[in-house]
């Protein structure tokens, strides 16, 4: 089964080609959507087969590399088109193909009647293929194809409604910010390649070979540089500080896109990449700290913004950024499997949330369209009380919200609590631990708050929609609700795969599964870890309780503000106008970037063109010509037409010539 791994990306590619080339001719939505969904579902089946086979193998045999064909071979450099199957990539392909299939299915319903339906499915398939290349790539370069490929698809899908200027802007912004990350990725790759090659004559970008040679890497130094560069790549892809602003804007794309790309899969690529190269990252304590700090900071920062947004998808977007922050926090504190675990659970509940919001928007849009209202279908201030009209959507949404808020028993609790615990208990960052934990906990509180704010504003209370449209609100069709239900179920129970040891009810399957992948990293980490007193179980229990309490506090505040005392938010805003404005405007980060980078770049470009290029460089060129020309004018006027002038010139020539030789 392992050597059939190439089928996994191949199916979506076929889907892409069929829909891309002939979709316009097919016209039948069912066929198009069917092909798209079927292809990814086939991939899912193959993935399942691989998973099954892998479960049956002993841990040390769970790594398999499949070389498809040689790609770039030049000089010392060798990169093949090759796939790597190991526990980590298997988890990823399961998530991608699984969640991907559901979202494809959902899209058939959601995108019904859209112009360019075929285009959407082609892109979606292309995205899946790229994402699968990313996670399956056995060397950095194949990973990079996927890495950029998903960026491309993200660009295409964000810009799906290309006639909207905002969509085009958002798409471009996403791609460019990703490119900034890619810049880091490439430099990191070069550094690692060059270091290994010139110092140990190991010229490789292959993960397996790098892993085998990773003991040669020094701690810190060049590794810090390389890993920081990689981390820049990760921040771009996974929307971390400072490259996070594209993600909220990316909500311009259709909602399934947001669910698949900007919640479940693509944005987690950065986390995956760090996991893939954990044995390199762990060699640099400095980078680990930076990752942890950036992750924590992003978690809290995005969470604050999320509290003030009114667009349902934007809240979710900031929530995604914040959750990604948690994952990076996990990576940064060396809790790699916890990070990946959160990645997976997040894929479930966040995909469910997005799809749920999509269902809401779909319904809202439909209703508003019926009465020709131009109200914003995504603005929560226009919603309220939808739980009656859309019960399935409401239920699945609620389950996922509970999961993300960290209520025990649901998947989010297990993964998030593990991360918070590791932030507190890890042995890498010394006194910083408590700060990291604190920030994480507050962010969790915020998470609970804004998520429940979302739920309350959308599904509870008065129905604030245009009264005329109210009667048109209804539950979405099955093709939409089935994926919701599946994902809701996963969001509820998915966490039991990785139940913390301390709860002791089930073994932590997840950690065991990933152990062979992260073993080496943990071993390297232990060489410089602080071997202080290990926190006791009591503390762990205490903290776990605390985080639950925190989540509940968040929910309570949300309940108070948006259900019981609905005038409270207004009062709050009135009390702290500046704070609200700043938070509402996302801390003015976009404006800051415009001010710092975009505008100077444009101005500088203008300057270089209009002034430097035209006046200085070209001016020099033309200036030479002009000087010559003016000389020409002078010489021309010396040709006066008078014979004695000509004779004078001759005589002068003679005199000078003679004089030079006589008096020299």
């Amino acid at each position, binding site marked *: 089964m392992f050597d059939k791994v190439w089928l996994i990306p191949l199916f979506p590619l076929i889907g892409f080609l069929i829909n891309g080339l002939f979709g316009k001719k097919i016209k039948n939505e069912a066929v198009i959507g069917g092909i798209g969904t079927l292809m990814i579902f086939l991939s899912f089946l193959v993935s399942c087969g691989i998973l099954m086979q892998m479960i049956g193998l002993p841990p040390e045999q769970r790594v398999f590399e499949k070389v498809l064909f040689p790609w770039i071979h030049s000089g010392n450099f060798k990169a093949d088109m090759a796939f790597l199957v190991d526990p980590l990539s298997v988890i990823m392909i399961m998530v991608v193909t699984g969640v991907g299939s559901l979202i494809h299915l959902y899209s058939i319903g959601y995108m019904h009647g859209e112009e360019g339906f075929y285009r959407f499915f082609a892109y979606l398939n292309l995205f899946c293929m790229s994402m699968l290349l990313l996670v399956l790539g056995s060397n950095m370069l194949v990973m990079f194809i996927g890495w950029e490929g998903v960026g491309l698809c993200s660009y295409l899908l964000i810009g799906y409604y290309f006639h909207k200027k905002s969509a085009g802007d958002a798409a471009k912004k996403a791609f460019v910010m990703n490119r900034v990350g890619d810049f880091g990725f490439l*430099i990191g790759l070069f550094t690692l390649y060059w270091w290994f090659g010139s110092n140990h004559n190991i010229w490789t970008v292959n993960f397996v070979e790098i892993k085998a040679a990773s003991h040669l890497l020094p701690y810190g130094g060049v590794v810090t540089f390389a890993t920081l560069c990689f981390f820049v790549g990760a921040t771009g892809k996974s929307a971390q500080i400072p490259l996070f602003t594209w993600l909220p804007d990316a909500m311009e794309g259709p909602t399934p896109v947001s669910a698949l790309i900007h919640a479940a899969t693509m944005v987690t690529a950065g986390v995956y990449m760090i996991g893939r190269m954990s044995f390199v990252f762990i060699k640099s304590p400095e980078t680990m700290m930076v990752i942890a700090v950036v992750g924590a900071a992003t978690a809290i920062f995005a969470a604050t913004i999320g509290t003030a947004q009114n667009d349902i998808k934007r809240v979710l977007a900031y929530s995604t950024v914040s959750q990604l922050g948690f994952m990076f926090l996990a990576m940064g504190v060396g809790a790699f499997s916890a990070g990946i675990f959160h990645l997976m659970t997040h894929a479930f509940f966040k995909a469910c949330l997005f799809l749920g919001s999509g269902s809401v928007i779909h319904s809202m849009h439909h209703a508003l369209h019926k009465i020709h209202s131009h109200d914003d279908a995504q603005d929560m201030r226009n919603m309220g009380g939808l739980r009656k009209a859309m019960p399935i959507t409401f239920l699945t949404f609620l389950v996922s919200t509970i999961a993300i808020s960290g209520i025990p028993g649901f998947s989010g609790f297990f993964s998030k609590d593990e991360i918070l615990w590791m932030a507190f208990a890890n042995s890498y960052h010394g006194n910083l631990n408590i700060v990291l934990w604190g920030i994480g906990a507050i962010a969790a509180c915020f998470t609970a708050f804004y998520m429940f704010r979302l739920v309350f504003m959308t599904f509870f209370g008065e129905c604030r929609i245009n009264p005329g449209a109210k009667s048109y609100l209804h539950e979405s069709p099955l093709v939409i609700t089935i994926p919701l239900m599946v994902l809701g179920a996963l969001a509820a129970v998915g966490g039991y795969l990785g139940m913390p040891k301390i709860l002791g009810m089930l073994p932590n399957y997840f950690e065991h599964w990933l152990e062979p992948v992260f073993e080496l990293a943990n071993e390297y980490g232990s060489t410089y870890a602080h071997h202080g007193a290990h926190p006791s179980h009591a503390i762990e229990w205490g903290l776990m309780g605390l985080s639950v309490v925190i989540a509940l506090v968040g929910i309570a505040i949300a309940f108070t503000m948006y259900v019981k005392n609905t005038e409270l938010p207004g009062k709050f805003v009135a009390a702290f106008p500046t704070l609200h404005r700043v938070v509402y405007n996302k801390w003015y980060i976009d404006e800051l970037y415009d001010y710092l980078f975009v505008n100077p770049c444009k101005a500088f470009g203008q300057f270089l063109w209009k002034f430097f290029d035209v006046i200085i460089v070209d001016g020099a060129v033309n200036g030479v010509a002009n000087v010559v020309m003016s000389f020409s004018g002078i010489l021309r006027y010396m040709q006066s037409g008078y014979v004695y002038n000509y004779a004078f010139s001759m005589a002068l020539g003679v005199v000078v010539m003679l004089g030079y030789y006589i008096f020299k």
Partner: protein
Amino acid sequence: MSNVLSLTTFLPILGVLLLLFIPKDSKGVLRNVTFAVTIVTFLVSLLILTGFQTNAEFQFVENVPWIAAGPFIMRYNIGIDGISLWLVILTTFIMPIAVLSTYTAVEEKVKEYMVCLLLLETGMLGAFISLDLFLFYIFWEVMLIPMYFMIGIWGGKNKIYAAVKFFIYTMVGSLLMLVALIFLYFKGMQAGITDFGLLQFFDLKLDMATQIWLFLAFAFAFAIKVPMFPLHTWLPDAHTEAPTAGSVILAAVLLKMGTYGYVRFAIPLFPEAAHKFAPVIATLAVIGIIYAALVAMVQEDVKKLVAYSSVAHLGFVMLGVFAFNTEGITGGMLQMINHGISTGALFLIVGFIYERRHTRLITDFGGLSKQMPIFATVFMIVTFSSVGLPGTNGFVGEFLILLGAFESQLRWWTIVATSGVILSAVYMLWVFQRVMFGELDNPKNQKLLDLNAREITIMVPLIVMIFFMGLYPKPFIDKMDPAIKKLVAQVRVASVNTMAIPCADQSQMPAGHPGGEMPPGHPSVNMPAGHPVIESPSTQPAAPVANPHAEK
């Protein structure tokens, strides 16, 4: 078969003769004949490709006497190796496409136009296959003439300025190169070289000062052609004014003359000097990358934007070439071909919309995707190829260049150059967005027709190549690899020699110094006390980083 190179090169000339017998007014026949000629040339050039043995030797060599007068002996000495092979193929590949693109674009003076195109093809092919320096120079100059007329006769509003600037600019550089060429020959004559044959000159040992001057002269000529910052200003003008086919050929092939010149002539002829100037050239290349990208970003004319993007792309090529390692030069060569394909395609695309709307201002467009979906797709693919998206050809070249340069002494340059990757995305996507996305609000754009069959036929081979070279560049790399390895070896041997000089100095040092094993009473004649070793620090930077542990 043995004359297949000559055949390929001069087939277009035969085509010209054929065209002369076709009446002026039968435009269709003229076009079809020209197209047929270029296709035949392409097919013949495929014979070269299939007959090419993958090794470092020059093949299909033809070497017959040509001029022998005075101190000079020039020979009709041609041949190709892996480096020139692909450029020859690129040329013959682009030409039919360029011809096809003129079917509706050029309605006036068709005959003359076709003659120019065919002459140009001969000139370009000749320059790529020449193994005689003098022959190369002749072709190098001959190329200018048809291009000059193409810009000047069929160009836009400001055509005269652009054409004259193009001609004189390149002429200045190439004439200085001519002086260097002659000087080199006389130097070679003293060492027993008998003719202008390039290969003999590779073994010539020149002193550093001579090398520097000669290298500068060659480098200047090639830098103008590339064009490198700050000698690039002719290019945007020439591109904006030239007709579509002219721009395509200019970008796809003519600019490669410059970079090819470095790879084939300037570097292997003067390796030590090349090493010495590598940082300077790399700096200019990197400035070019960033600068051109920033300037491209704010252009209002699509064609000008593409022209500036050319400057940036060729900056990458230069950086790769001056990395002096296999990866870098391979990347540079690939990027040359890639640039030929993707920028050629971009100019064709600009030509398509220009033909429809007679404007190239970005602000006149917007939302074309809706009206022209096929065009949008094509444009997008080419855009991403130009940006260097993995999976397209642009990536392979760019990646190898950056990798190679990073391995070499040009590490910090590479890091700056890599940021060009970001900027290229910015300007290309921005223009794509402004042209293709948004509301289709300009009424003139609402009646635009999508690409017709001919235009699709033009673009398909390019798109196929974009993906083929992106996904399976192996055949390309394999064919050029031995030649590049040989080049790298040539350059490396030379640089070892430069390093040997200071070493020798140092080894003599103890002997010259008083004390040590010196016999008592022996005065230190050779080297006065306190005489520092002046040579070593100045020659140090010329040496490549042979000792990588230094970075640790």
